[in-house]
């Protein structure tokens, strides 16, 4: 069974990966012939494609929409600026979700007259909203996809930790 895929770059800049179905390989058909047939049939006409091994892809699909590839034969890699944008959107969505979940907690604190709690929740929420302007700089300091994927600002962590 082939471990090869076919990669090409779409006109919108995105990377498409054609994964051959092993069951489609004809009896007595060599791997090269099989890949060439798939390349000719399933790759859009007019684009440059390359056969690469599965090992050439990033370690995971965390930033799948930030993959990039050039025709020089290099491995598929993550475009860091794009990945930062993706991760930023994810973090802000995660923050927004966390903020959405604060209201019941505020209500409970209010009911309990726990002003300290109320203040801590609001401080955390306010701090997290500052991420709208500070997050870009934080992400810019991260230079690998792995570091980027692992990064969660403490403001969000604190927000999610509120019980």
């Amino acid at each position, binding site marked *: 069974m082939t471990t090869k*895929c*076919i990669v090409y770059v*779409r006109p919108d800049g*995105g*990377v*498409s*990966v*054609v*994964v*051959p*179905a*092993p*069951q*489609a390989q004809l009896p007595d058909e060599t791997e090269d012939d099989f890949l060439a*047939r*798939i390349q000719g*049939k*399933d790759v859009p006409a007019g684009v440059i494609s390359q056969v690469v091994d*599965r090992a050439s*892809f*990033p*370690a*995971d*699909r965390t930033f*799948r*929409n930030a993959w990039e590839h050039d025709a020089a034969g290099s491995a598929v890699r993550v475009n860091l600026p794009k990945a930062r944008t993706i991760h930023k959107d994810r973090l802000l969505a995660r923050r927004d979700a966390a903020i959405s979940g604060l209201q019941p907690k505020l209500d409970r604190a209010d009911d309990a007259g726990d002003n300290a709690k109320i203040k801590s929740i609001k401080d955390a929420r306010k701090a997290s909203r500052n991420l709208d302007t500070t997050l870009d700089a934080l992400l810019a300091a991260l230079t690998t996809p792995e570091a980027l994927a692992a990064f969660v600002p403490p403001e969000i962590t604190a927000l999610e930790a509120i019980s």
Partner: protein
Amino acid sequence: MGLFDKKFPGQKLNLRAQDWNDVLDAARNGRETTRDVAEVPGLLRQSTLCKLRNQTGTDLPRYSIVGLDGPIVAPSEEVDVFQQQLTFDGVVPATPTHIGRFAVLLESLPDGEMGQAVISGVVPCHLALGGADPVPPYAEVAAGITATLAGSAGGSAQVLWAEVVGTTRWALVRLQGPACDSEGSWGGCWLGGSTTTITVREVDGAPTVTANTAEFESTDGLTVTDLGSGVAKVNLLAASPTQKGAVTTGFQQIAGQKEWLAGHLWTITDTATNTWTQFRNSTHMTSGSPAAGFGFYEIDQLQASDGNAHEAAKRVVEWADPAVGTRKSRERFYVADTGERLCLVLQADGANPMIGFLGAGAVPRQTGDIGTALVNLGLMSGTPTSGYTDESAQDAVGNILTDTATIDFTYNDAANQITADVKTNSISVGFMHASATDVLFGRSSAGAGAGQEIVCTAFARTILDDVDAAAVRATIGAGTGSGSGTVTSVALTLPGLLFSVAGSPITTSGTFAFSLVTQTANFGLFGPTSGAAANPTFRAMVTADIPSNIVTYAKIQKGGPTRLLGYQGGIGTQDVSELVPTNSIVLATTNLQLLNDSSSPGNNMVYGTGPTGTKGWFAAVGYTDEQAQDAIGAMLVDSARIDLTYTDATPALTADLIADTITAGYLHASATGVVFGRKTAAAGAGEELALAVQADMETATSTTTVVVPGVVQYHPGVAKAWLYSVLTGGTVPAVTASQGVTSITDNGVGQWTINWSITFSSINYAVVGMADTDHTSYSSTLVLDGAPTTTTALVRCYRSSTETVKDPARFSVAAFGDF
């Protein structure tokens, strides 16, 4: 210490009375002189310096050269100022306007400003010269140049001193106006420096001499002697206008060269006062030691339609080799149109003259073919043709060949050959070569070869000259031909093998008698028994003497009744003899019969041993006999599929198929796509059933056709393609199982293109799919993204809770439709 020695500050001043009085007198005298000048209107204080206004358009440094353009204040404007002070506007020098009319700035002068300049006297300035040129005696302004004066043989500034090397040299020059101011001018041309001495002498009469012009009649001669460097002009005023003209001769140094250009200018004026000019310039061609190319050239210039002189001819004389021991000179002749055209080159090569035409180098006298010679001389261009290899020339030669009565010419165009051959029977005696008397042409030496002269003896010549046989007989002494002779003995010899001779020889008269000799019994006269031909001898016959197949049966010895000719008994070869049959078979008169059996057994009888063991003739019987039947039964052999059984009592022979032995190859032939079975409702004999084809499957109504796996896919109820893909553990999806799918294209998070291996007949087909859920936080929905194509379908996976595109852990897709 004298009166005029200067003192240092603090030094004691000790004057004598007389010295002090002298100082006072000197001071009084100076004051009075100054007052006198200042008090006299119009008196110039300074005649060697002037105030000059820079009108060159550029800022000028000190010691720049400017042309004097006129006073700043004209007399018509303010005569007092004009008289009291020398002022000029200084401009960029131009020639000839500013020759002798220039000044040297004594201070830097911005454009438009006024300052002091020297117009007469000795002043430092810069000279422009060739790097190694000698210091010239004079200098003059150069057009457009403010930085330097140009060194020359004649000029208005005398060079008193200058640096000896460099292209821009400091110099001290004396500004004195045109040199001719002191030496006089003649015909408007400068004659050179102040040391030039010119002697003008009228040959046959007194010249008319005015202040600036020396004039002569046309018949007068003119001698100029001791003319130094410079220019001389002879201007003859003719009695007739047709004889007007002028000759100017001069020298000029060429920039960058040591030597000088010598030139002549002829000016001719006709009755219509048109003027023609002609120049001849001779110029040295090098500035260094003589080397190849050292020499001079002359250029003749003629006035053309634009009124200007243009080069018309040029002659160059130079060394091809300047070394005195091997010196060789070369002379080149040019004519000109818009450029120089080399016509002729003459050169010495050390022993011979050489010549070259039309731009070619000089070559010595040419040998060989004329084409090469013409090319080498420059009279032809291109590659020379040698000899008569030119096709047209060869053909021309071939065409002029004319056969004679004796010679046949043949021209072979391909081989470029002319052959001449003597025509047959055309060479008469007159063409034979001259020979001595009594010589014949022929061959006396043994063997074939060239013809030779055969010298006849006088006797032989006499025989040849004899007119008839009688004359020949007379010559050789054979008489007249009617003489007689005598035979004294006649002998006869015959082969002794056959004959014996008696009576030989006969010396007078007699008869020869010969007889046959005796021979051995049964011997004959034969040639050799084998091998090559040889004389015959008497010998016994051998087998080889009898040719094959010539002895017929009739020629064989007659035999007796009931006899055979052959061989009987014994071992080895025997003579053939008659045989007497004594056993079972005898030969009857016409038939072969058994011994002592002369009966005729009749039809269908065979000879053998009867049922009782008796030999004799018995009637032949068929296969109804029990033994024959048994024999047939005994030889029955079953095969793998047929079981044969023989029943002796009947008798009967049966054959039956053996169960499970009949394979498809033994079934009867049928049409393609048919199986054996039964399609009729009731039980009965087997029938042929057709295999379902694509149309049957797509119609999906047949109940009488048989479905095989290869057509199941065409049934509308069957999924045409499907796949199951897993993303867990991989960065790109894996096609774990599929049918009718060649690949999936991962376009990003939750977006895939399913690439069918089949082509649907239209886009009207169904795509269904499922994606996984984790049962707690989300579920996934697989959707078709837009209309599919006949070969692909784009699907997306959405997280049901957020309606955002996501990657599931696994998903499956199936398609139903027609293809």
